[in-house]
């Protein structure tokens, strides 16, 4: 009888336990991370009684949670992926908003605004309102550069602060996991049952952790989990290695775990998203804008540096880029131009410097040949200082400083030298002979020229030992050697340079002047013929005019093809040769030419000659430089001499300070005339010119930056949407396994309710049976 009572009691207790479990499930139907629990029941072991195998009722075995551990692992990993994308996307969208494209107020529109205001100025170069407008529109772009570059740095440092606060959360979660680990192992060891609800809580903590940083989870046999980040232990069996976030030496976010020898590099979770944003995306956009700013500065400066400000030249000019002591020997000026720490490269080329005498308005042009692998900073300074009227030095900051001596101005433009035959070597009044061909002249050893002057014969010796290239004398070197000879100057003779030829002339002018060259060992090498040379009363005046629109710099040498009088001798011609000696054009200046009239040469230039005699037999010639680009070496841009923009990246780019204060310093003119806008036209040309370093125009490059930002965000967005879909499908799967269906629970509740009622009824029957038996007693 007690067996039956026992069966009834067990049935009652089991149903009650089942109803408890159902109640727990219904209660937690909306609890995050809750896994549905089930009471496992079985029939009790039967009893062998009276030869019968009698069933012994039901027994409750265990409460298990309905969970798929592998699925949970996938969800944890997916949470890391989504955490990374979410964090990254939020930051990236801030950058996108910062660029403000497409729209009318991004960098592209502001740069176009500069070109527009420069265009307006080009039609009216003197107008101070237009000048201020040009400076102002540049200021707008500069401000935008500064603002955006600051904002990007700010976003980067915000990302670091966010990562720091996330790491605090990581540490809290890690401690919680350690606590739960301890409770679970304890309970499970003591009771031998599974700590369902604690494990659910630990899963929730792991999930929250995974959202912040991607983790690897390993459970040991006691039921505790170990959590690793990038192979380093964050949560051990009973201890935490706290996470810390710092800024590395290169300004990037650095994550470390206590006790770790190297920083960890998480590949998922919000922290990874922030790191990736800061290290890759923001840095790339920042670097892109830096390159953009640098090339804008280069393009505008390259045109502006050879321009001339409104007042026609400089009395003093200071470079904006400093030379640095790259080789570290304590000496700055000995650096080669190519390794002087300048922000822009110097090329092999030429720089033309013009010095204007303020009283006479006479312009002297000097050419400096620049070879960055040979010329040092000091060499450049010396070359400038060797020009009469200029001195150049480095200031204490290592910036080039050029001063004009009083009464002089200078610039680097491309004025036309309207009086190219200053020495009168082309039919001038002086007795003249010029070498028949261009130098350099090969002189193996000391060589002589025998001259008979007014005071009698003498001999001049030219010693090639002093020349820069052994055995070879340039026209400049030979002229200098001649002018250094006392007999030569004593005979009232002078030597000068005509292009790359040497001219020997009397100092005085007129038909009374003469000298005779009688011989000497240097004549053949120099291309000078022996003979008597006489001056003339009627000197030819040469005037050059026009605007040179050729593509490259050139040196034109003019020489008569025969002897004769301009405008008179039939068939008299003048040949114009380019710097390679090729005849560019032959000008008819004989009978029929009205002296003084301009004759077209080429490339927009023309020349006029007044009446007088020119003699090919005396080697008459003159040479003039025609300049398309007065600084092919870009040495001005490199030093930042007469720059429009200073600075080398988005943060430092700025308008040259004195131009901002005084827009008249904006160098609009190419020739020095105030109404000329040649330099402006070159600056405007930068709008459509290809920039080698950027692989396109400035505008195209900026388009690439914006397009790239757009693409990266769009692709991150689509990745996020795909990963979210995957996550929701994983969560749906998890819900299938672990979720609570209330209806289902209700059905089971009724099922167990009925079972409970039945068991109670059964007990009542047994009780009645007992009563019946007792009544028998």
């Amino acid at each position: 009888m007690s067996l039956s009572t026992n069966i009834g009691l067990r049935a009652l207790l089991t149903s009650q336990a089942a109803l408890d479990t159902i109640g727990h499930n219904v209660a937690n139907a909306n609890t995050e991370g809750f896994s549905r629990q089930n009471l496992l029941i079985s029939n009790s072991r039967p009893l062998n009684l009276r030869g019968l195998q009698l069933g012994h009722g039901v027994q409750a075995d265990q409460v298990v949670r309905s969970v798929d551990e592998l699925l949970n692992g996938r969800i944890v990993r997916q949470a890391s992926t989504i955490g990374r994308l979410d964090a990254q996307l939020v930051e990236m969208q801030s950058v996108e908003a910062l660029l403000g494209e497409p729209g009318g107020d991004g960098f592209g529109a502001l740069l176009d605004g500069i070109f527009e205001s420069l265009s307006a100025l080009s039609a009216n170069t003197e107008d101070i309102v237009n000048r201020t407008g040009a400076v102002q529109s540049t200021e707008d772009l500069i401000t935008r550069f500064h603002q955006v570059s600051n904002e990007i740095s700010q976003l980067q440092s915000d990302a670091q602060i966010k990562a720091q606060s996330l790491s605090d959360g990581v540490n809290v979660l890690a401690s919680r996991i350690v606590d739960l680990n301890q409770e679970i192992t304890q309970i499970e060891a003591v009771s031998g049952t599974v700590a369902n609800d604690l494990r659910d809580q630990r899963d929730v903590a792991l999930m929250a952790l995974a959202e912040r940083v991607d983790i690897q989870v390993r459970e040991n046999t006691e039921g505790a989990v170990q959590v690793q980040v990038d192979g380093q232990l964050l949560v051990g069996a009973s201890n935490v290695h706290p996470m810390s976030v710092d800024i590395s030496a290169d300004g990037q976010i650095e994550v470390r775990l206590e006790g770790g020898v190297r920083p960890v590099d998480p590949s998922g979770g919000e922290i990874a998203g922030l790191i990736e944003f800061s290290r890759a995306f923001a840095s790339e956009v920042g670097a892109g804008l830096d390159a953009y700013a640098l090339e804008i500065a280069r393009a505008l400066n390259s045109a502006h540096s050879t321009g001339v400000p409104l007042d026609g030249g400089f009395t003093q000019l200071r470079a904006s880029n400093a030379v640095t002591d790259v080789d570290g020997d304590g000496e700055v000026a000995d650096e080669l131009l190519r390794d002087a720490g300048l922000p822009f490269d110097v090329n092999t080329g030429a720089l033309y410097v013009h010095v204007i005498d303020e009283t006479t308005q006479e312009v002297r042009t000097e050419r400096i040949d620049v070879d960055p692998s040979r010329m040092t900073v000091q060499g450049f300074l010396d070359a400038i200082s060797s020009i009469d009227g200029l001195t150049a030095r480095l200031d204490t900051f290592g910036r080039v400083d050029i001063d004009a001596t009083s009464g002089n101005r200078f610039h680097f433009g491309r004025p036309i030298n309207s009086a190219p035959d200053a020495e009168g070597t082309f039919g001038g009044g002086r007795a003249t002979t010029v070498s028949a061909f261009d130098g350099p002249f090969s002189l193996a050893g000391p060589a002589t020229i025998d001259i008979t002057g007014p005071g009698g014969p003498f001999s001049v010796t030219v010693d090639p030992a002093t020349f820069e290239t052994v055995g070879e004398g340039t026209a400049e070197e030979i002229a200098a050697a001649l002018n250094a000879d006392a007999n030569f100057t004593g005979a009232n003779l002078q030597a000068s340079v005509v292009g790359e030829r040497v001219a020997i002339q009397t100092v005085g002018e007129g038909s009374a002047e003469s000298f005779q060259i009688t011989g000497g060992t240097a004549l053949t090498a120099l291309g000078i013929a022996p003979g008597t040379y006489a001056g003339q009363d009627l000197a030819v005046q040469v005037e050059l005019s026009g605007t040179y629109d050729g593509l490259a710099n050139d040196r034109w040498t003019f020489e008569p093809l025969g002897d004769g009088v301009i405008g008179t001798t039939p068939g008299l011609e003048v040949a114009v040769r380019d710097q390679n000696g090729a005849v560019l054009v032959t000008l008819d200046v004989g009978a029929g030419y009205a002296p003084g009239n301009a004759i077209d040469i080429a490339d927009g230039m023309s020349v006029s000659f007044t009446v007088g005699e020119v003699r090919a037999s005396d080697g008459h010639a003159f040479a003039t430089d025609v300049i398309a680009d007065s600084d092919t070496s870009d040495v001005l841009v490199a030093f930042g001499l007469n720059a429009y923009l200073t600075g080398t990246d988005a943060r430092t780019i700025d308008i040259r300070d004195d131009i901002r204060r005084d827009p008249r310093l904006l160098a609009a003119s190419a020739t020095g005339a105030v109404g000329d806008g040649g330099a402006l036209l070159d600056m405007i040309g930068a709008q459509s010119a290809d920039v080698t370093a950027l692989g396109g125009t400035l505008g195209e490059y900026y388009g690439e930056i914006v397009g790239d930002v757009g693409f990266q965000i769009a692709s991150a967005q689509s990745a996020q949407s795909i990963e979210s879909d995957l996550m929701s499908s994983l969560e749906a799967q998890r819900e299938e396994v672990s979720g609570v269906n209330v209806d289902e629970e209700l059905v089971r509740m009724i099922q167990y309710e009925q079972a409970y009622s039945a068991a109670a009824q059964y007990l009542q029957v047994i009780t009645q049976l007992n009563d019946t038996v007792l009544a028998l007693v």
Partner: protein
Amino acid sequence: MTIRPTQGRIFDLIRAGIQSNTAQLIRAQEQAATGRRIVRASDDPVGTSLSLSLRRQIGAIESFVASTESARPEVGQASARLQEGSDVLAEIRSLMIQGMNGALNQRDREAVARQIELLEGQLLEIANTRSGDSYLFAGTATNTQPFVETIVDGETVVAYRGNDEQQRVLSGREAEVVLNVTGSEVFANFDYTGTEIGGTTGITNGTTADSGSGYGRILVRHDGTTGAVGAGIALAGGGDTAVGDRTVTVDATAGTIQLGAGEPFDIPTPLPASLSVADENGARVTFDMTGWTGAATTGTVTGAASISLDGATYTPTTLAETDLRLEHGTTGAVVHVDTTALHTAGEELLTFSGTPSVFDTIRGAVSDLRMSDETDRTEILLRLEARLGELDRSQDDLLIGLGQLGATAQRIDVAATRLEDLEVTVEGLLSNVEDADFAEVALDLQRAEQTLQLAQATGARLMQQTLLNYL
């Protein structure tokens, strides 16, 4: 297919459905509100790149418009001023023709000269026109007054101080428009065609070419007459202009004295101490007749002369030079003359044809008109005629300049129109890329709204379904 549905799943689905539909609704609303399909770069990166490139094109076009538009007023002003100048020249021309009228006396001519002077002042003002701070006709030396009165060799002349350079602006990629005509082109064009010598002294051009500009004077100074006439007639000196050898023929019967082939001149009584006789060219020799014996005689007298271009340095002539070089000490002008036909001392007007500035010409005409009545009328006429030729040339230069400015104005207009067209086209393209299609947006909006409502309705129904309703 979900195997085991749960309430949580149902609620999640309802929530997700409502959220995604609301997001679509917001997106459509954003497009409708901004009117733009691309609000941020990531909405359509390709479209954004395209939009930027189109905006660059518009930017470039706007640059060109900015330069041509800011050039337009100056071109217009220059053009208007040249038109005025042309009118002034026409008036000066008619005054000069009036001044050539032989019936005018010196006072009348003075009145004409004054009027011309006033007009010349007006022309000078036109040539020095400023637009804002810059001179319109100074080339690119726009801060320099282009035409300045200076004193050269004691005479006030107008000199050009501007340059010959052109002001250019870009009217498109690689396309330049020249904005200005230089003062030298329109008021002081140099197109030398040869030297013209007025022609009353008998001097002609030498063989060698000359160089110089504007006008000049060849001064033939009489250096004294030598020789003997005979019959007691002596040379009185003073007022002699005949250069070279002259035969003097005294006809006792007719009582006349004849110089060269000139008209025989009646010898008055009483015999004068100073009798000026002219030859066929008007060259004169003065004789002292007081000692005349009354006999007929024939003699030869010779006038010596020297020539100068600047009035400072005189070169004696042998009357045999075919290529005598004369130089102006101040201006550097060089003239070669043939003296073989020189017969009379005096002053020659020298014109470097094609080179005088319009001011030189006008000032010359004024000084010609002011020549005294004593001057040979033919000489005045000759001079004025030469000036008139130069004035016509100047008028032509001015009209050419006017034509150039007209062409420039037209090019600016054409460029502006072309740019406007291009701007419209590019903006159309830009709108295609950037702007929302409103019909599409409206449809999207409606669709999103309906889907949302559907999701809400089904969700609401689903949420109410529970077994509890029936327990």
